[in-house]
C-alpha cells in the first residue's frame, strides 16, 4: 500500500523544479497515491527469471564515427530559443 505524505510531494516538486500552491499539493498527493496503487498491481506477478526490460527495441552498439558535423542550426538560432541572452550566452536568473 503506497504511503505518500504531503512532505514527499513537496520534496518531489522541489527536485523537479515545480512550484506548487497548497491546493495542488493536496490534489497531487491523492493522484500519486492512486497512480502508485495502480502500478503496484504489477507486484502481484511472479517475475522470477524474467530479464528486466531496459529498452523496448533490441538494438545494441548504435554508435557513430568520431567526426565533427557542423549543424545547420547556428548558435544564434539556438540562443534565440532561450527566454533571454547576453554575450552569446543564455542569460538566467542568478544561481549559486
Amino acid at each position: 500500500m503506497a504511503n505518500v505524505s504531503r512532505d514527499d510531494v513537496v520534496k518531489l516538486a522541489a527536485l523537479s523544479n515545480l512550484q506548487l500552491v497548497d491546493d495542488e499539493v493536496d490534489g497531487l498527493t491523492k493522484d500519486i497515491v492512486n497512480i502508485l496503487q495502480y502500478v503496484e498491481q504489477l507486484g502481484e506477478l511472479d517475475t522470477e527469471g524474467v530479464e528486466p526490460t531496459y529498452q523496448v527495441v533490441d538494438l545494441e552498439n548504435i554508435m557513430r564515427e568520431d567526426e565533427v558535423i557542423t549543424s545547420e542550426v547556428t548558435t544564434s538560432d539556438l540562443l534565440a530559443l532561450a527566454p533571454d541572452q547576453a554575450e552569446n550566452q543564455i542569460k538566467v536568473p542568478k544561481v549559486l
Partner: protein
Amino acid sequence: MAEYEMTIGIECHVQLATKTKLFSPADNDARDAKPNSKTHPIDFGLPGMLPILNKEAVNLAVRAGKAMNAKIANLSRFDRKHYFYPDLPNGYQITQMYQPTILAGEIDVPTEDGTTVKVRIHHAHIEADAGKLTHYGDYSLVDLNRAGTPLIEIVSEPDMHSPTEAKAYTTELYRLMTFAGITHGDLYHGNMRFDVNLSVAPKGSKELGTRTETKNLNSFRSVEKAAEYEFKRQVALLEKGERIVQETRGWDDAKGKTTSQRSKEDAQDYRYMPDPDIPPIVLSDKQIQEIQSNLPKLPPEYRAEWGDLGVDKSVINSILANQKYAELVSAVLSSGGKKAAKRVANWISSNLTIDEATDEKKNADVADLLALCEMTEKAEITSNAASELFNELMNGATDPRRLAEDRNLLQVSDEGEIAAIVDEVLADSASQKAIDDIKAGNDKAIGFLVGQIMKKSQGKANPGMAQKLIRERL
C-alpha cells in the same frame, strides 16, 4: 591530531580526447572558442533530438580501463541522472549508474618516500559533462560548449590515508591517462578534475567517520592542500564534541580553505532510470583485446624497464612527468644501452624543467645524444660541457662533435700534446713546492699541478691523462 586517522577516496573526472562530443557531432575542442559556438541542437537538449554514442569515446574508455588494470564489462548501459541546473539543458545527465563500462581495477602508486601504495579502483563510468556557468550581479550566463563533452569518472576505493598519498594517486592517474592518450591532460582547462572524499576516525577504529566531499580540484597540489585542511577541520570539530555533516564542500585555492556548498543529495533524489535513447554497449573479450592492443608504454612499464639503470627513483619519477622525455630515455636505452640511458636520464633530470603543468616540446635526436654520451664517456669533454651541449641538442641543435669544436670544448687527450704542457709546468719553479710535497707523501698536492696544466691548456687538457703523466714523471 596524532590520535586520528584519515581515510580518503577520490573521484576523478577525465575529459576524453575525442574530436566530437559524447552524443552529438559538435566539435569537442572548445579551448578559447566563443561561448556556445561549439554546440549542436543535441547539446541544447531540444525536443526530438536523437543522441548517438561516439564510438571513439567508448574505445578510449576501454583503453583507460587497461591503464587501470581494470576489467571491462561485456555489457554496459547508460542511465539518466535527474537534477535541475541551468548548465544541464536536458534536466538530466546521461551517465552509467548501474552497469558501467569499466569495472574494478587497481593502481600501484609510487609515493615521494619511495614506497608504493595500492589503490583499488571501484569502477569508472562514461558520462557527459555539463555546461559552464559564469555568475554576475543578479544573473548568470550559460555557455554550453562543454555540455556533452565525454568524460570518464574514475571512482577509487578509500585506500589513501594521507594528503601525500592523495597527491601521489592523482599524479599517477594523470600520467596513466595522458601516456595512454585518453585525455589531453590540460589541467588548466579542467581536463582532469578531482573530488576528494575524506573522513576522520580515531586511530585503530574499525568504523569510518562521516565523510565530506571537496569538489572540483584541478591540481595535484590543491588535492593535497584540501585534504590537509579537511583533516584539521574535522579533527577540530570532533575534539569539540561536534558532529561532521555529510556535505559537499568547495575549495578556495587563494584562501587555502574548504567551504560548505550544499548538503549532499541522496542517490534516490536523482531519480535514476535507464536511458531509453542509448542502446547498450556490448563488447566481446576479443573486441576488448583489439581495442586495448598497441597501447603506448605506460609509467609502470618504464619503471620496470629502467629498474636496473642505477638511476635514483626520484630521477625516474621526475622524467615520467613528461611522456616525451620518457620516450627519449627509452629510445636511448634500446639503441645505446644502459650506460647511455643513465647519462641521458640524469641530464634530463638535472637540466630540464619537468612538471605536468608545462607542456615542454623540447626533444633531441637519439643518434646525437648517443654521440654526446660517447664523447663524455671518452672524457673528450667535461661534464659541464656535456650539460651545455645536452641543452643545445634539446633546443634543436644537431651534431654535438661539431658543436664542441665550434665552442672549443673538446679536451686535449693527445698524449704528446699534454706531455709537453706537463713538462712545461713541472719545469716551472712555482711548481717545486708541490713536487716536493708529493714526493714527501702528500698526494693531494697533485691537484695544484693538474690545476696549472688545466690553466695553461685553457681548460681543454684531459685532467685524468694529465695526472697520469705527472705521476709517470715523478
